[in-house]
């Protein structure tokens, strides 16, 4: 129920001093909030960077391990290469020596050098020639030596000599 000729005028909520104080507080709060947000953003960025660096560290470690493994493999290969080269040199020398061992009376038709040993195919005028001139040096080189003779019409013998042991030949390179 109105008893007045006039209606009350709307009033400001706060006075000038309080308004200034409120503005100051709001600005201060805004600065604090902005600074907090900035710090939070920076720390979040740093956290993400740390996580990325850890991830990269892991990748680098795995790469390093891989490289180490590669280096080890290369070193092994180098060693193997050296061994093979040495073996090949030895084999070359052995073969050269082997062919030097073959006397003029005996004719070799085929020679197979593999991992298991040396297989010689050829013709000999007699078993004795073979046994004296070729078998003896073969036995000095190989552990086992088995020879099979096949007589020919002209009195000579075709022989197959299987020699196993000692000489390493045809070794596979480890990969």
């Amino acid at each position, binding site marked *: 129920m109105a*008893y007045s*000729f006039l209606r009350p005028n709307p*009033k400001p*909520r706060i*006075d000038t001093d309080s308004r200034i104080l409120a503005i100051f507080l709001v600005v201060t709060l805004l600065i604090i909030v902005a600074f907090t947000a900035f710090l939070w953003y920076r720390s979040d960025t740093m956290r993400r960077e740390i996580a990325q660096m850890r991830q990269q560290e892991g990748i680098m470690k795995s790469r390093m391990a891989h490289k180490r493994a590669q280096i080890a493999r290369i070193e092994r290969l180098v060693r193997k290469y050296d061994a093979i080269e040495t073996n090949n040199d030895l084999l070359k020398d052995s073969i050269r020596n082997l062919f030097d061992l073959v006397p003029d009376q005996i004719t070799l038709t085929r020679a197979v050098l593999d991992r298991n040993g040396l297989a010689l195919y050829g013709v000999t005028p007699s078993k004795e020639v073979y046994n004296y001139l070729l078998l003896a040096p073969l036995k000095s080189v190989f552990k086992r030596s088995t020879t099979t003779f096949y007589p020919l019409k002209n009195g000579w013998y075709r022989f197959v000599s299987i020699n196993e042991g000692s000489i390493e030949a045809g070794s596979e390179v480890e990969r």
Partner: protein
Amino acid sequence: MGKLARYFWPKCGLLFYIAEDRIETAFGFFEKGALNIEVRRSFPLQKKEEFFDWYRQIRQIYPKLYAVSMIETLNQGALPGCSRRIFEKFGVDEALSRHLCIEDRWSAYVSLVETKWLEEKFKGIELDLLYSPFVLLYRHVRSKLDEVPGLYILHQNGLLYMMVLTRDRLWFAHASAVPLGHGKSAVEAGVDVDETDDLAFDLDLLEGEESVEAAADEALNLLEKEDQGNEKGDAEDLALLEYNLNLYEEVKETITRYYRDDRYEETFIQKVMLCDSDGNVSDFPRYVEDELFMPATLERFDPIEAMADLAAGEVE
């Protein structure tokens, strides 16, 4: 938040009214549905700038300050109804007045010119609530109203605001001024009471005798002082008596006017209550009881308290 706002930015009221040559003011806080008066101050009307300064100081501290006043003028009244027909019947131009309907029973109105005059007079004050003396009187006596028609009078600053009321309706209202009597006007006109024409002895007889003259001067001074005191006291008493009689006559004339005015529905006034804020009408009830043979009572009326009571209900 509401409690916080009330604590930090309380609602306050600055109430004021003109009492003769002074501005009576009061400042208080709106709390729990009431306006609790904290300070009362009085400013000379000539130094109203001091009052404006006080208002500005308070307003700077308390932005939710409501300025409350009452309008004292004869160009206002109350009508027994709220309809346009009532306004037309009593010749009140709605366009030229501010008016409000009270409890859907009666209307209070005041001339627009008068409100503009008040606003102009207190230009430094942003008025929020402006009350009619009739409304203040009604609120003051509302709890005392019953089925017996009574004449309720508010006496303030030599003006009379009169209402014939019962519990459920207003029968009649009228505003008038107490005519200034001869004695009163003499005092108010500042008649020089130092005049010695009425002295009981002749000063001419004492001329020429120095020693006698000195003694006579002394005696004369004493007598003058005594006479001044007596004359002044007597004049005031006389003025007061005359004022009371004039007030009574004015009330009696108003009652007669009511009974004779056909526009008002007639009822028989059976009691009179005078609410006085000036404090100079103590004889009035006796005159009414002796002359009009009806019970009359006199109550002290404080406009500040009446405005505070109303303002508390209007400021949310």
